[in-house]
């Protein structure tokens, strides 16, 4: 049988995201039309039936994430895609996914906000919402920030793998520019990919513990309808998945459960905590960015280098959990750190926390459009003085 070869095709970021999801084994997509994320749903509507998967347009984003959780427990790798306003509506559902340890992928194509903002203009306003949006100290979301159609392709596959391995929601934090930009995307052959598979845990055993709350261990996920008689709850529960417990043990059980949900994300041996650097070795000034602004940052840094300035840049690919250790090593001994974000300042405080008081941190905010190379060069110039 002929296998399709690896090939490079021209794709929009949103299309690349949908294609990658299908390649990663996504077989359930639920969504609600919203600019600038709609193309993901449209492509899924066409392609999902071709691979035997389910596409459904739900009545709103609340229903979209809820049905994704149901689909995931029925055995399908599942995903939804939206933009800021819809992402806000999904927060309660994301909390349910965290609490029930449901693997799912949520794509948030960020747009200008708050509120309706401007649907066709870009921003990176949802960085903190992606991390802290759900109530109750929910900190299990993994957040990945792509900067190109190729990268959203790769990170969407990565997102499914992480979601399945760690049984947690993974958020692909795209933005309007990445979503609508067209570039060549290398589509690998499926056998070249490492894809995380759902482990079938049948037959049911009476000893089966629904959740081992032991640090970072993640138990295999049973499927509804296979005899486990699961009691899945958004409520606090014990290792057996049991809700009723003596009142005096609630604080202990709660601490154990919440620690488990947090620890499995931070302590697991996964390689997604990614940062990418350029000219890091001999730089005195480092620029930090993520997502689409990192593209102009990169070209500005290259120009500054031509002019002989000792400047480099770091791009955060994994936003949450924050790649503190990697960043600390890279930024050691820097005189100046410049944070370039398409917002009024979200990741900059985290950077300040990492570098401490000895290094000067400058923030370059902008909303609704990318920084120009000149704007960034200006900042580099001021830093060099």
């Amino acid at each position: 049988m002929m296998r399709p070869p690896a090939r490079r095709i021209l794709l929009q970021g949103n299309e690349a995201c949908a294609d990658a999801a299908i390649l990663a084994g996504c077989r359930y997509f639920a969504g609600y039309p919203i600019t600038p994320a709609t193309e993901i749903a449209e492509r899924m509507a066409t392609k999902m039936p071709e691979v035997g998967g389910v596409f459904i347009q739900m009545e709103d984003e609340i229903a979209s994430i809820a049905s994704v959780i149901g689909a995931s427990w029925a055995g399908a790798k599942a995903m939804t895609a939206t933009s800021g306003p819809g992402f806000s509506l999904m927060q309660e559902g994301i909390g349910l996914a965290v609490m029930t340890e449901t693997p799912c992928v949520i794509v948030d194509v960020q747009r200008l906000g708050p509120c309706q903002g401007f649907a066709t203009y870009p921003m990176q306003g949802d960085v903190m919402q992606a991390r802290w949006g759900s109530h109750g100290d929910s900190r299990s979301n993994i957040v990945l920030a792509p900067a190109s159609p190729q990268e959203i392709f790769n990170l969407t596959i990565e997102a499914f793998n992480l979601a399945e391995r760690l049984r947690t929601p993974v958020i692909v934090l795209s933005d309007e520019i990445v979503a609508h930009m067209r570039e060549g995307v290398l589509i690998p052959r499926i056998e070249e990919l490492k894809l995380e598979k759902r482990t079938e845990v049948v037959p049911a055993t009476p000893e089966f513990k629904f959740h081992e709350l032991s640090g970072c261990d993640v138990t295999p996920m049973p499927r509804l309808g296979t005899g486990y008689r699961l009691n899945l709850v958004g409520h606090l529960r014990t290792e057996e998945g049991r809700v009723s417990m003596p009142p005096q043990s609630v604080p202990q059980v709660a601490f154990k459960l919440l620690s488990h949900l947090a620890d499995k994300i931070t302590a697991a041996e996964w390689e997604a905590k990614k940062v990418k650097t350029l000219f890091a070795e001999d730089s005195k000034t480092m620029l930090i960015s993520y997502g689409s602004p990192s593209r102009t940052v990169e070209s500005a840094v290259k120009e500054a280098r031509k002019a002989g300035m000792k400047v480099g840049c770091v791009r955060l690919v994994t936003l949450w959990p924050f790649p503190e250790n990697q960043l600390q090593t890279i930024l050691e001994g820097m005189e100046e750190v410049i944070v370039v974000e398409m917002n009024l300042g979200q990741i900059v405080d985290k950077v300040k926390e990492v570098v401490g008081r000895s290094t000067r941190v400058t923030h370059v905010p902008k909303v609704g459009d990318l920084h120009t190379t000149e704007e960034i060069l200006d900042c580099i110039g001021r830093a060099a003085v």
Partner: protein
Amino acid sequence: MSHPLLKYLREDWMPTLLCPGCGDGTVLQCLLRAIENKKIDIDRVALIAGIGCHARLGTGYVAADSMWTLHGRAFPVATGIKLVDPSLHVVVLTGDGDCGSIGLGHFVHAARRNVGILALCFNNSIYGMTGGQVAPTTPRGTITKTTPYGNLEYPLDLCSLAETAGASYVARWTTAHPLQLTKSIEKALGKSGFSFVEAVTQCPTYFGKYTLQSTKASDILRWFLRNSVSIQQSEKLSPKELAAKIVIGEFVDVQKFELAEQYQLQLKKKSGDWK
């Protein structure tokens, strides 16, 4: 000899945390009896609930796959499950607040899509779990914790809404009609499309106390019997007379295209390019 339905329950989780005289147990028993009578494999049943007394009862104490999800969101969770595994018996346990207020949109759309799930609504006409606040089903004039001077709003008829939205099967009974309720659930379990069965259930702790000045279940059950009218009887009543009544019976029983089944048919035509 043990009770024939005991095998469906987690005895070691008992007692339940529901109040004495609560009608939710009666409704749950009717559901389990219907599952037993229809000889449905309990391991192929998924009970999906939102939030409320009914949800707390129906998803923990029953030894079956169950999800206690978010307030009002059981319908979309169930829709996702049904579309992925169409042969599963997906039962949504919902309440009058859960499906008539916070989850109203989801309820209407599940009925409109005619997705093959059974929605069993425990309607106690009050917010019980939070301590007796007004619900969208509370009769006008009722004094509750959040309507201390009397409820000014008109109550919502969940069955007529389900009918308008396009459900395949719609019926209403009270906990004073357990045999009829069981029969309706059996019938609903046999339907391929969306079915909605409303069980008007007694909440002695709040609704009984506020409306009948009695916290005795038997008083409320007698009140249900006195105030229940059949669909035929209801047609002879004026809107004013009808306002104080509970119309019971089967409102809808039609055959329509079911979503998950139709989706599978569409898939067969489309799939094949990728394997």
